[in-house]
């Protein structure tokens, strides 16, 4: 409780206020893009009123996607910040340690947000299936796999926060691999809460979804960690960005292929809709198209960073890396928002 040197700290802070504002632009872009996309996509795919039955209120209908988005973004940030020490490397602790310390701090905070969002999401989901009545969370979690998935995810987020707390206290002695692993386990139940197809290769589509979620989190989370923490440290960026670039290439391939696979399988296997037409006639199909377009744009932006900026970055020359990364993250945010709506939208 000894906050004696508060004036000094605030003086330091006001001195670099614009730097802070600039550092926040990528995160703000990601969040704003995601919020915009999720609200629009939810509004577009809102189910019509059902005659004779109570409908869930506006708070549930919009709150559930938004909370789910918060969950996804917090999980992504947790993964990315846990990955950051691996990207930074351990051979120059004097330079990397301040950044790694901040990454550890924020990783714990985002784990806590993740846990809270998962629990709120479970409550809102329970409210969604029993509109007009008090949400029965126990029955929902007991009876429906999505509820169990949310609880498991919240537990993993809590465990991730605990490990992260240890890391905050003991530094990088708590291995980054462990942190990534624990947080990664929290991602695994999330696809269960979306819809996988009910076909013969059901397990294959589940694996594909797991890969999709893990790949997206590593990719977006890694980029947001780099874009927020690293742009003013050109020497570190010069070493880190090539490593991340390799990771991003793998992630692009994995995320793109698995997403395409899952979306098309879902469209193909839905009864009552003919396939190529359902891409534009159904809300689900339109969202799949939107996501594919976003992925293409992200690939272009990523390619721009990789081939046009990376050589200059490795030379430690001044580049517009932060701006390009912020732009890419904004498009990624749009894709995240659409993804949240996609998990909830019925095909037919």
């Amino acid at each position, binding site marked *: 409780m*000894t*906050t004696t*040197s508060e004036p000094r*700290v605030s003086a330091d802070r006001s001195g*670099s206020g614009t730097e802070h504002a600039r550092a926040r632009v990528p995160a*703000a872009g990601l*969040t*704003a893009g995601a919020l915009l996309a999720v609200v629009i996509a939810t509004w577009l795919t809102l189910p019509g009123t*059902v005659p*004779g*039955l109570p*409908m869930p209120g506006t708070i549930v209908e919009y709150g559930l996607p938004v*909370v789910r988005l918060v969950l996804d973004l917090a999980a992504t940030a947790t993964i990315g910040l846990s990955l950051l020490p691996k990207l930074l490397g*351990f051979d120059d*602790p*004097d330079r990397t*340690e*301040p950044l790694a*310390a*901040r990454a550890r*701090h*924020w990783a714990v*905070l985002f784990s*806590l*947000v993740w*846990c*809270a969002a998962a629990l709120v999401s479970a409550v809102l989901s329970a409210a969604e*299936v029993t509109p*007009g009545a008090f949400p*029965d*969370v*126990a*029955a929902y*979690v007991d009876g*429906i*796999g999505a*509820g169990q998935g949310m609880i498991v995810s*919240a537990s993993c987020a*809590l465990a991730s926060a605990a490990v992260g707390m*240890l890391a905050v*206290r003991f*530094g*990088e002695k708590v291995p980054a691999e462990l942190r990534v692993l624990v947080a*990664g386990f929290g991602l*695994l139940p999330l696809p*269960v*809460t*979306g*819809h*996988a*197809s009910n076909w013969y290769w*059901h397990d294959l589509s589940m*694996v594909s979804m*797991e890969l999709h979620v893990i*790949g997206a989190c590593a990719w977006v989370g890694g980029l947001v960690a780099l874009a927020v923490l690293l742009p003013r440290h050109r020497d570190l960026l010069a070493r880190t960005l090539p490593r991340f670039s390799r990771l991003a290439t793998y992630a692009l391939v994995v995320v793109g292929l698995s997403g395409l696979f899952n979306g098309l399988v879902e469209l193909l*296997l839905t*009864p009552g809709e003919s396939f190529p037409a359902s891409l534009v006639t159904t809300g689900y199909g339109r969202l799949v198209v939107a996501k594919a377009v976003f992925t293409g744009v992200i690939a272009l932006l990523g390619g721009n960073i990789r081939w046009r900026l990376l050589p200059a970055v490795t030379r430690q020359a001044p580049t517009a890396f932060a701006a390009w990364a912020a732009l890419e993250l904004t498009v990624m945010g749009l894709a995240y928002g659409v993804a949240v709506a996609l998990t909830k939208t*019925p*095909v*037919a």
Partner: protein
Amino acid sequence: MDQVARMCNDAPTTRGGRRRTGRTAPPPAAARAVPPRNPPRVLAVARGRLRALAVPLLALLSVMLIATPARAHDVLVASDPMDGAVLGAMPASVTLTFDQAVRRDFARLAVTGPDGAHYEQGEITVDGRNVSIGVRTGTPAGAYAIGYRIVSNDGHPVTGAVKFTVTGGGAAPGAVTAPTTTPAPGTANPVTANPGAPTTGGGTAGVGTAGVGTAGVGTAGVGTAGQGGGSWVWGLLAVTAALLALCARVLVRHDRRLRDGTIPAPPAAGTPRAASPGGPEPSDTPASDTPASETEAAGAPAAESGAEGPAAGRSTAAGTGAGSSPASGGAA
């Protein structure tokens, strides 16, 4: 915990060598036998390969662990009467057919008449992919709608409506009780109708109020059942929320102290006392307890992170506002 304590006891001399010391310490995992001073590129590639292997393995494991498979959304494939049908007389019951088996719990049906009143009667019966409910007698001619909400196997509600038109009078009185004779197994029916509901009601107004009344009873029943079975869940949720808030508070306070230099930064914290399970709680760590050099070393990163770091006010905002704060915090 023991391993962490042991690693802390290694008493690293400089901050620069700390990470390597941790690496060469008795490894917690057997795979930690990698020589630490190798070029990092080689290490990174090897680890990247390991991770690339681990990811699909983890995914497979999860599919096996999480035994409740997510299924697709249920989709309405047929109905009796069909959508847009024109019937001479109201059938005794309506049936909706989905492409997959329907969950008994959470399923709801409503038959709404041209006057807006409810005409469904009896309990919902679920038979595999079919969901049906009885219809009252004495229905007026006009446009009807069957509203449905079922919960898919993936936990998502599926809603919709089937519309049809009745041109003639009501159904045969005897057929009305047919659906109620086959009670489905499972939990309490959300749409429990009053068993003593008048089936001989003549006036539409009277029937309408009765229908509304039963709907009200249904929701009330759900509400009480939910609270009776789940009050401990709310308690648990509240406790978890409090725990999360506490964790966030501790963390933010720790961060602030770190910045103030009241406590040493993590790399310098090598005292065995710090290895208690309450690692996140930095309650009493007087600076006099640590060697001066370490405090000095801690001061540099603390000041640096203070200069570049996120404002403490923002940390607080992100920490205390549980659900919606990151959005606002990030956008602010």
